């Protein structure tokens, strides 16, 4: 099993607060990703990184920002949370193995903005 961690698992906050969702992996993977998923809906890629100091926006426009200062750490920040940010946020990292290029997902952070 892959070692990728997300904290917090659940977060309820008020509008206007600044929050940071943490994502860490201990596998040394260069590539990391953030997805947003509403219940029963598809995953949307919001940010990705191919390595330290590399960050790109995904296919879904997001008001969040990310940083990649260390290989193992890929935090996502919302400067001013709004109710429209309520969703599940999934972090992943990937590696090429004998099975192909495989993404490993964390358990997710379920965010509720009141």
């Amino acid at each position, binding site marked *: 099993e892959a070692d990728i961690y997300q904290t917090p698992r659940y977060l309820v906050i008020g509008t206007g607060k600044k929050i940071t969702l943490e994502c860490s992996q201990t596998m040394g993977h260069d*590539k990391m*990703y953030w*997805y947003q998923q509403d219940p029963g*809906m*598809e*995953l*949307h*890629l919001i940010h*990705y990184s*191919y390595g330290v100091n590399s960050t*790109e926006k*995904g*296919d879904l426009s997001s008001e969040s920002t990310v940083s990649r200062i260390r290989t193992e750490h890929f935090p996502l920040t919302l400067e001013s949370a709004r109710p429209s940010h309520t969703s*599940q946020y*999934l972090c*992943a990292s*990937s*590696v*090429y193995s004998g*099975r*192909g*290029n*495989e*993404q*490993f*997902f*964390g*358990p*997710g952070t379920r965010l509720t903005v009141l």
Partner: protein
Amino acid sequence: LAKTTQPISMDSYEGQEVNITCSHNNIATNDYITWYQQFPSQGPRFIIQGYKTKVTNEVASLFIPADRKSSTLSLPRVSLSDTAVYYCLVGDRAGTALIFGKGTTLSVSS
């Protein structure tokens, strides 16, 4: 990035073989086809990846015709625990960011 089209949902019974087909008409020469499985409240999990013809692992087979414009994920003898959403993705093997799409919700009944 190539887009994919899958059926929204499928129903099956325990013990049956399930085949889920995905269309990817704009697949590029260096693109691979990957399938993921997702259970409620969890992140997706890698099932299988292939480039052409047939790939088989311990849980599934992947069939890709010569023109590579579609692919079929085959799950042999499904059980209730195979009830999940299955995503077909197309992208290069370097791990360039992938688009998940809506997926196929498979419901397995007893």
